[in-house]
């Protein structure tokens, strides 16, 4: 019986063996995978908080990395990769913000309002309910002029120097420092409104 069992042909393996799971969606594109892994969070975060819309942020992040991938050969390494990606992201997000929809729903607040707003820059941010923190941050950022919002988001990235923020926002370092001071004050005021 044993001998007859040994003479039987082995069961054939199923013809369609599922492929092993890929280490990542971008496994086939190693160059892109490397930059995506390192910078996607920063770029997505900038797009999310600058545009204030998760769907638009998702589209923007996709488009930024696609543009970057297509332009990798022209990237001469004169700037850091992060700065280069931020430049693409800022241009992209500003184009989105200049679209008809955004132009028509954006609040126009006189810059002087922020300059004379009561000081809340030195007041620490105490957060009890962390579930709604993202919403509060978004509301506070939405209340700021676009330029202040951008400067705050860029300065919050510890990988960027003030010089790089100045270059990305096309102004001097002194101008960045001045606007950052006002942006912090305005953000603090808007954030604490929801206390």
């Amino acid at each position, binding site marked *: 019986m044993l001998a007859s069992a040994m003479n039987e042909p082995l069961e054939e393996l199923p013809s369609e063996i599922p492929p092993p799971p890929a280490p990542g969606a971008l496994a086939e594109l190693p160059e892109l995978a490397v930059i995506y892994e390192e910078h996607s969070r920063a770029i997505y*975060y900038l797009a999310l908080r600058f545009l204030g819309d998760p769907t638009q942020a*998702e589209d923007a992040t*996709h488009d930024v990395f696609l543009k970057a991938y297509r332009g990798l050969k022209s990237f001469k390494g004169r700037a850091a990769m992060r700065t280069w990606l931020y430049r693409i992201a800022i241009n992209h997000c500003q184009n989105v913000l200049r679209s008809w929809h955004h132009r028509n729903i954006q609040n126009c607040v006189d810059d002087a309002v922020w300059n004379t707003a009561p000081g809340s820059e030195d007041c620490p941010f105490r957060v009890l309910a962390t579930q709604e923190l993202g919403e509060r941050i978004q509301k506070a950022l939405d209340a700021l002029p676009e330029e202040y919002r951008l400067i705050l988001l860029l300065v919050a990235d510890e990988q960027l120097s003030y010089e790089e923020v100045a270059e990305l926002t096309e102004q001097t370092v002194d101008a960045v420092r001045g606007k950052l001071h006002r942006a912090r004050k305005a953000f603090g005021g808007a954030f604490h409104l929801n206390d």
Partner: protein
Amino acid sequence: MNEPFHRQNLNQRQQSAEETKQKSDTETSGLEFQTAEELLRHDAATIEVPETIAARLAETAPGAAPPPWWKRWLHSE
């Protein structure tokens, strides 16, 4: 000398209650950030990048056509 069983049990319950209170205090005391940037960094660290972005890139990037020659030429000037 060994403590009686009911005494040991009471100590354990007191210890457990203290641990629960400490945990609860930490949860209700929340978080504090000195600057707006610190708050934004915390926010950024808690954000999940949607996995759909990488999946979309995996589909679109391989077929992404290079820019036309004149655009590359203008860019290289």
